[in-house]
Every structure is written in structure tokens, then in C-alpha cells.
């Protein structure tokens, strides 16, 4: 495939607003996780974003008001992203710029709130509740398109925790097909009771801050995040970040709804397809940003997959000890971490983890390392056995 250049990117998570806040927290090894105050029934740590409820949507878009769209707007306002979008919109026209985002739960928190205020007699939802612009999975895509004044092809990819990785593949196809000149890709997922108690019911939520790859790892810490990037065909006239998407690989596990295939075959296939798509040999990869959820099965199978595809010398780590597992926003959040690592010449380690599971065979790094690497492979795996691997690198 031809690479897609990254014209601009922005990231907002528990590490703060914008790429510089993320870089600083990564290098200072400062976690964004804290005891959960969003829902005190959940005895866990979360990666919450400060100030989401202080965001006010423009009056014309007030009907979209919900935590997910407030978080989306907060994210869009960082890193000069609005100016970058304006520039591609002026260059190509609003209809030649697509918007492909990922989410797992969109604005379902609005329904959770409304269910506490049902009419005691009729059981009806409150009059001010508006489904289409909040709970609906497509709502955040529509909000972002209106906020950015873009009218090109649109979709919300919702494949659980691989959602905002798979958006890069969909964007590549739209650009390769000539349907658009640029795509705003990204992902937004916000804290809600559904995921806190749902993952809890499956025994997948840790009571302590998440410790990926530890021998006694105890599950995820849920986070929230908004991240976006503009991707364009290489050689386009605009300024860009010097970064590019070189390949993607998608696969299915065909195994179980909430447990990955223990031998890692589905994950390995996604990684192999990404290498083949990028036309790269395994030794070209300088670092793997793991999905690394700290669930018992995920980390074990991902370790197997990495060893099998890349061997046992490639540094790999999970950064979820910083951000928490941001679910449908994990792909774009870890793309941003990969971009920051590439541009700043360091590899983030695995925060919170003291010791690597002794049964693991790949080279899991715990401490940050200085390294100028050419290519980073980022893994995202979701419920339903939805796997996606992306390869990013610098671009001349």
C-alpha cells in the first residue's frame, strides 16, 4: 500500500489536554489513574479526563450535549487541530474530507442518567432527553462533522476496543479509492456506568491501578479519551507532522465473545497482515505498543503473538498504566503515544508493573528507554475477537 501521512493529530486523556501534556506525563512516568469518583459504587481506579463537564457545546449544536460529545469537543480544541482541519477543508472542500471515528458506548451515559428520572407514573423518559444526538452510536460522528463543518463520507466504527484503530484502515480505503482527499480519523469514549459495572461483572476490572504483564495482573482500569488525526495521501501539499501510517492488519479470532484466543493466533494474524501491508520485515519494527489490558488472558496471548511474529528481542510495552483502557478510544490514544515516541526518541515502559510475568517470552520493557526507532507497531484487540494492528513511522 502507499503510506498515509499524518497531517495533524491531537490527544486528550487522563494524562491531560493535548500531545505536550501526554509527552510530559509519559517521560515523567506520571500516571493519570486515580480512585474512581465518577461512580463511587465501582471500587476501582479510572483514567478520568478533568473538566469534561465544564465544556459547553455551541448553541447550534446544544442538542448533542452529553459527556461523550463534550469530551470530543475538548479534544478537538487542542494542538491547533481546528486550524489544521480548516486548512484541509479549504484545500479540498468539505465534501472531500471524510470523518471516520470509533466508539464503544458513545453517549449512553445520557440514557443512564435519564433512567434515574423516568416519569413515576408513565415510565417515560424526561422530555429533554434526545436519543439521536447522544446515546446513538453515530451521534459523536455527526457532532464532530458539524463542529468541523465537514460533509464527506462518514461512519462510526464500533468494534469494541479495536474501534479507533480500525478507522485508519477504513480511511486508507476511502483515500485509495479516490472518494476523498483526507479523512479525520479518531475515537471518543467516555466513562459510563455500563462499562464500569459491565467489565466488573466479567471480573475484568482491577481494584488497584492496572498492572499490565505483571505475574499477578488483576485486570483493567477504565479510562476515557478523545483523539483525532488527519490522514492524507503521501505527497499532498499540506504541512504534516513527519509521521505516516505504513500498514494495517485486521483479523477475527473466531473464538469467544469476551476472551481472546489463548494461543494468540488471531492477534498474530493481524500483526502479520500489517507487516505484509507495509511490506516490512519483522526486524524493521523497533517497538510494539501492546494492547496490554492486564487481563490474565489478553497479555499472555499477546506475548505469544509478539514472540511468534517479531521474535523475542523487540521491545514491547503496555501504556495502559498511564491512561487506563480507553476502550473505543484506545486505538487512537495509543497511535498518539506511538507518534510521540517516534518524534521524541523514547519508548515508554510499562507503568505500575514491578515484574514481568516469568512465563512471557517477548521483551517486555518496564522502564522508559531512549531509542530512535523507524517503525512502531500498535495493537488493538476487542471483544468479539476483533483484532487490528497498525504500523506507524517517520516519513520524509
Amino acid at each position: 500500500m502507499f503510506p498515509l501521512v499524518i497531517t495533524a493529530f491531537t490527544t486528550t486523556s487522563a494524562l491531560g489536554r493535548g500531545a505536550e501534556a501526554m509527552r510530559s506525563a509519559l517521560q515523567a512516568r506520571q500516571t493519570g489513574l486515580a480512585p474512581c469518583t465518577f461512580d463511587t459504587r465501582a471500587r476501582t481506579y479510572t483514567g478520568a479526563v478533568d473538566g469534561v463537564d465544564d465544556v459547553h457545546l455551541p448553541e447550534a449544536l446544544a442538542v448533542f450535549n452529553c459527556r461523550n460529545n463534550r469530551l470530543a469537543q475538548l479534544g478537538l480544541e487542542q494542538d491547533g487541530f481546528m486550524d489544521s482541519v480548516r486548512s484541509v477543508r479549504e484545500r479540498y472542500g468539505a465534501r472531500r474530507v471524510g470523518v471516520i471515528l470509533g466508539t464503544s458506548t458513545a453517549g449512553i451515559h445520557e440514557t443512564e442518567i435519564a433512567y434515574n428520572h423516568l416519569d413515576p407514573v408513565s415510565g417515560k423518559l424526561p422530555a429533554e432527553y434526545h436519543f439521536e444526538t447522544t446515546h446513538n452510536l453515530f451521534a459523536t460522528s455527526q457532532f464532530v462533522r458539524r463542529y468541523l463543518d465537514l460533509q464527506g463520507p462518514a461512519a462510526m466504527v464500533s468494534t469494541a476496543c479495536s474501534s479507533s484503530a480500525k478507522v485508519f484502515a477504513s480511511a486508507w480505503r476511502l483515500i485509495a479509492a479516490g472518494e476523498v482527499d483526507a479523512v479525520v480519523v479518531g475515537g471518543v469514549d467516555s466513562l459510563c456506568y455500563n462499562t464500569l459495572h459491565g467489565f466488573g461483572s466479567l471480573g475484568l476490572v482491577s481494584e488497584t491501578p492496572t498492572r499490565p504483564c505483571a505475574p499477578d495482573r488483576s485486570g483493567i482500569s477504565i479510562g476515557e479519551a478523545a483523539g483525532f488525526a488527519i490522514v492524507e495521501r503521501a505527497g499532498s501539499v499540506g504541512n504534516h507532522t513527519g509521521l505516516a501510517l505504513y500498514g494495517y492488519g485486521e483479523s477475527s479470532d473466531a473464538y469467544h465473545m469476551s476472551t481472546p484466543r489463548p494461543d494468540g493466533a488471531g492477534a498474530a494474524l493481524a500483526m502479520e497482515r500489517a507487516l505484509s501491508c507495509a511490506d516490512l520485515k519483522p526486524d524493521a519494527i523497533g517497538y510494539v505498543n501492546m494492547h496490554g489490558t492486564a487481563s490474565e488472558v489478553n497479555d499472555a496471548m499477546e506475548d505469544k503473538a509478539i514472540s511468534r511474529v517479531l521474535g523475542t528481542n523487540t521491545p514491547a510495552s503496555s501504556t495502559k498504566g498511564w491512561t487506563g483502557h480507553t476502550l473505543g478510544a484506545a486505538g487512537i490514544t495509543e497511535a498518539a503515544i506511538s507518534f510521540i515516541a517516534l518524534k521524541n526518541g523514547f519508548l515508554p515502559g510499562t507503568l505500575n508493573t514491578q515484574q514481568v510475568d516469568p512465563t512471557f517470552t517477548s521483551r517486555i520493557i518496564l522502564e522508559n528507554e531512549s531509542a530512535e526507532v523507524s517503525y512502531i507497531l500498535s495493537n488493538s484487540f476487542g471483544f468479539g475477537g476483533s483484532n487490528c494492528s497498525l504500523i506507524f513511522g517517520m516519513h520524509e
Partner: protein
Amino acid sequence: MKQVYLHGIGVFGPGLVGWPSCRAVLSSAQAYVNEELPKLAPQRLAPAVRRRTGDYIRLAIEVASEAVDQCGIDASTLSSVFSTSDGDGQIAHNICDAVRLDQAEPPVSPTQFHNSVANAPAGYWQQAVESFEPSTSVAGFDHAFAVGMVEAVMQVTMENRPILLVSHDVRFPEPLHSARPMDSSFGVAMVLASEPMSGCIGSLDVSIQYETGIETVLKDAQLDKVRLGNPAARSLSLLKAIADGGGEVALNYPDSGLLLIKYSKMD
């Protein structure tokens, strides 16, 4: 403009159960009778697995099975695109009810929770047919069928791989039904490929257009009501063109766009 080849169709809607009966109604060979939907029990799901699923997942597997069985392509070789308006409203209702703040220990069912992800139908399908091929689940509210079609056509033409496209939505329970009304459940599935293979029915020329135009409606008022009663049923205008042996239709596409699809029968 992109061209793809159509190899199999699955339909499940009110009075339109299965493609042969749907085709007969749409081509006016048979009168339309709006009947209550039969119970869904897709055989491709093992009974123990099927018991863990609700209508949202069963509907997707039902129409997917019909489309795939019709064209005789090995289902494990197909990638898939699943498209929905909103995901599973029944589960959303159950979980939002379980996590009400007066619940000190919210009684969320783990099975319901893992079935709540929008790609749950895809997960069950890929498992049932033992396919490692990629699957993408997309949402598009009232435009879900058109949004899914665009994703599917991009995958078929740019990745050069055959695709199973499924678009489906089920009625929500109250109180969500009042906020997101749907008349009935509806599901549609199509197998699309970049080259005609054995069992090819015809070709679809698909393009997005922003010039002024209006969505194609069905002349039969009763059938047009079905078309508007569920986002997946927006596919009925295209299904009619297929039943008629040829034709061009326009589907609404976000926001001001139209998805134009021209169906030509295989000679």
C-alpha cells in the same frame, strides 16, 4: 463509481421472510401481507450458544446465513461488514436499568454485557463460520444501510476480497422505543465480490453524490411504510430494483448526500 458483484441475499422483515418471498412481493407477483415476525432460531448457532443471544444477534445470523447459503461460497473465506443504527436496544435498556443509582450493587449480566458491544453479531458470526477474516461493524443511525454499503464496497474493491454485508436493527423496548421508534425488526444481508463468481446474481454500481436529488420511495404505500419503519429496511428500494431485474435507486446518505446504486442483472 465502484462496481461490485452481488452473489446472495438474505432478508427478514415483517411479511418479508426470506429473499424468495420478498422478491415475489417486491416484483408484485405476490400480494404483501404484513405479518408478525416468526421466532428467530438461526441454525448456524449451536443451541447452547443461541441461548446466550437475543433477537439482535439472531437476526443478523439469520439473514447472513440465508445470503451465504444461497451463493455457495465458503463462509469462512468471507470478510464481513455489519451495520446498525444504534446497536442492541434491548440490552441497552436492561443494562441502563440495572445500573440505576438506587442499585447499590448493579446486577449487570456478564453475558448481556459482552453481547452489548455493537460488534457482538459479528463476533458470533465469525465464530459460527470459523472465519479469521476481518470484520468491521459500523453505525449510521437512519443511514446505517448506506453507511454499511460504502464500507463494504470500499473493502471489496480496495482489498479485493469478497464481503458479507449485514444491516439489521430490532425494535427497542419502552421507554427507549418512544425516543427511537421503529415499527418492526428488519435485517438484510448481501454477499459482494469484486469479480463475478459462480452463483452471481448481478452487479451494483455504487457512487456517492451530493447534487440535488431525492431518496427513491416504493410506490406501494404499505411497503414504503415498512421501508421507513426500520433503518435496515431502507434497503427495500434496492431490493425492489433487484427483484425487478434492473434499476437505479438513491438512498439518503449523511448529511446531504445520496448513495446511488444501479443494479444490472447478470446475463
